[in-house]
């Protein structure tokens, strides 16, 4: 009885293998393919608005491609070789790094301190925590215009205050370092609170018993901070450093709107023209898309290199 049944079964299975019924074939296909189709929207969108522009930019960078030109000539790597001999590009790269260092470095230190303060037992804790996020909520453009006013060379509030302190006014537009400080202060104002909250979240995830053990061993508050909090924050700090590197090297809106005349030169002598601002100027004032694309790709490489460097440095430093 059982033997016949199993024989029949086997026979059916053998029959089914070369040609399963349509119903099963479809459901097999469904099980295999549909998960990919469900995630496809993201990848299709990513390919269309992420990967394709990236590769097409690389393609455009090999041409002397002026906006509106009928038939752009192929020039190979000429855009790149011109770029590496272009003083304005190196100046823009210097400005970008200078503004990046002036913003990111103090910002992360201050953010850690603020996070530590917010982690203490405060009255109206949520109020304080939301408070540090307020600058981030405010519109970037509005913020930049207000800071541009504060740092006005002739009638700005910052110079008025410096005057009260007996310091001679600084021309925030003309001085390279001055303009970088002004722009970095905008970045810091906006992002410090944001980063502080991320770090705060990480701090709260540190188990309490570690601190208690340290307390029993007689470690001071400072010692606890440097020996427990900071090392355990490592993954979060790496994240914050890498994201602020990517953002900082692509800084655009602040220097663009800091220019009083609304141009894209980044100051009369490009004192605060960043790489992205130079890219924008090349593309939309110089109408030279090929050159702008070359700048975009070089910047892309620089960002990757610096982010990788940061990653390794931070990993070692906070060990």
């Amino acid at each position, binding site marked *: 009885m059982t033997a016949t049944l199993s024989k029949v079964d086997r026979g059916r299975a053998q029959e089914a293998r070369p040609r399963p019924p349509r119903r099963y074939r479809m459901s097999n296909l*469904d099980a295999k393919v549909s998960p990919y189709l469900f995630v496809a929207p993201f990848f299709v969108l990513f390919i269309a608005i992420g990967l394709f522009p990236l590769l097409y930019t690389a393609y455009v960078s090999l041409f002397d491609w002026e906006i*509106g030109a009928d038939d752009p000539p192929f020039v190979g790597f000429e855009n790149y070789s011109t770029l590496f001999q272009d003083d304005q590009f190196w100046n823009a790269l210097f400005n970008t790094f200078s503004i990046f260092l002036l913003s990111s470095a103090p910002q992360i230190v201050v953010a850690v301190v603020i996070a530590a303060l917010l982690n203490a037992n405060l009255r109206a804790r949520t109020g304080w925590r939301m408070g540090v996020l307020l600058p981030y909520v405010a519109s970037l453009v509005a913020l930049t215009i207000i800071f541009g006013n504060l740092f*006005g060379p002739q009638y700005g509030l910052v110079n008025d205050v410096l005057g009260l302190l007996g310091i001679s006014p600084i021309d925030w537009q003309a001085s390279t370092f001055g303009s970088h400080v002004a722009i970095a202060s905008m970045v810091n104002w906006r992002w410090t609170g944001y980063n502080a909250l991320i770090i705060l979240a990480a701090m709260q995830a540190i188990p309490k018993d570690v601190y208690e053990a340290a307390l029993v061993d007689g470690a001071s508050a400072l010692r606890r901070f440097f020996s427990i909090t900071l090392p355990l924050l490592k993954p979060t700090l790496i994240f914050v450093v890498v994201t602020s590197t990517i953002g900082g090297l692509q800084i655009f809106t602040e220097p663009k709107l800091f220019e009083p005349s609304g141009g894209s030169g980044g100051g009369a002598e490009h004192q605060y023209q960043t790489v992205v601002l130079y890219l924008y100027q090349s593309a939309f004032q110089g109408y030279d898309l090929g050159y702008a694309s070359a700048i975009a790709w070089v910047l892309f490489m620089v960002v990757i290199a610096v982010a990788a460097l940061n990653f390794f440095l931070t990993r070692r430093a906070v060990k």
Partner: protein
Amino acid sequence: MRHRWISVLICAAVSAAATTACGTGGASQTADGKTELTIATFNEFGYEELFKEYEAAHSDVKITQRKTGQGQPHHQNLFTKLGAGSGLADIEGVEEGYLSQFMSKAGQFNDLKEIGPKVEDDRWLKWKTEAVTTKDGKLMGYGTDIGPLAMCYRKDLFEKAGLPSDPEGVKALFASWDSYFAAGDQFIAKVPGVAWFDSAAQVYNAMHNQLETGYYDKSDKLVVDTNAAIKANWTTVTAAVAKGQSARLGAFSNEWNTGFKLGKFATKTCPSWMLGVVESQAGPENKGLWAVTDAFPNGGGNWGGSYLTVPKQSKNAKKAAELAAWLTAPEQQIKAFKAKGTFPSQTKALDAPELLEQANAYFGDVKAGALFATQAKKIKAAQYKGPADGQIQETVFSPALLSVEQGKSADEAWKAAVEGAQKAAK
């Protein structure tokens, strides 16, 4: 099971549609068989009522306006879509500051003499049409408005300096650039803390545009370093800066606005549309202090104003040209002037009573319309503008003059400007 399979298909279809549904609608016919004409403008052309009038007279046409708030994004869009090969409106507004860039792309626009209706040759001021005519005589745009230059000045500050302050008396000071800068010396000696003009670039650009030959010669060769007149203007203006005649306030910056409020400079080169800017920046507290006179050093000049053009992308070029020709006729342009104050470029419109009677209360009830009409007629010819002309003025010479105001030596800044111009022209 079947049901799930269908949902997968829908999901894929939606994601595909989401990425491709960004094509431009090339429909030039509306559902009821009318021809749809699109017109892209920026700021205020004052055409809204005129469109209704035209549609009422032409039952087969429907006009759609694409309006951009500011000129810069409008032109960026224009040149980008020109490169893309599609997406432009049937009629595109082009501002004078972008004219050199536009003319270098003339091949992608229609010759209005060829496709447009017959338009009388002297409809526009001669220099206005000259600027938009190619070397081989093609007409690339119909003139809309202009910005003839006059001189605005602060009456009270002139009195303080012991200079004449009535509109007739000051004319001698504004007869030539020499007399202008000489009066400036006199002024800054008498009124400490107040400059003579707002910024070097504003004065320099006006001087430059009066030159017979500008940054390019007519064969499109860059002549920045060989045209002695350019260097002479540079030297004159930077010398005035060195003496303290400039308030060092870049035009349209926040500090420039503050400078108007505080009365930090005594004269301003004033195209017709600047009167409104002065009024809103100097504010009611300075009403009656600013005056304007129908004199400008060394004759006249123009800053601003636009053209209507018909790109070759347009599928209804002929009908678009008809509409553009109608809009830029004197009768219509006067209506636009009354609606939004755009100063007409048509010779007949300059004699229209509506224009001549227009008065400006902020500037002491001066007959501003008649004043600027006089100034418009003083302009002799349009300077030839080469391909990167606008860019050289905006991104090279203006910043270079600003750098002199920030303390750089005039000689070094000149060298940088010449290099910058060569780079921009490349």
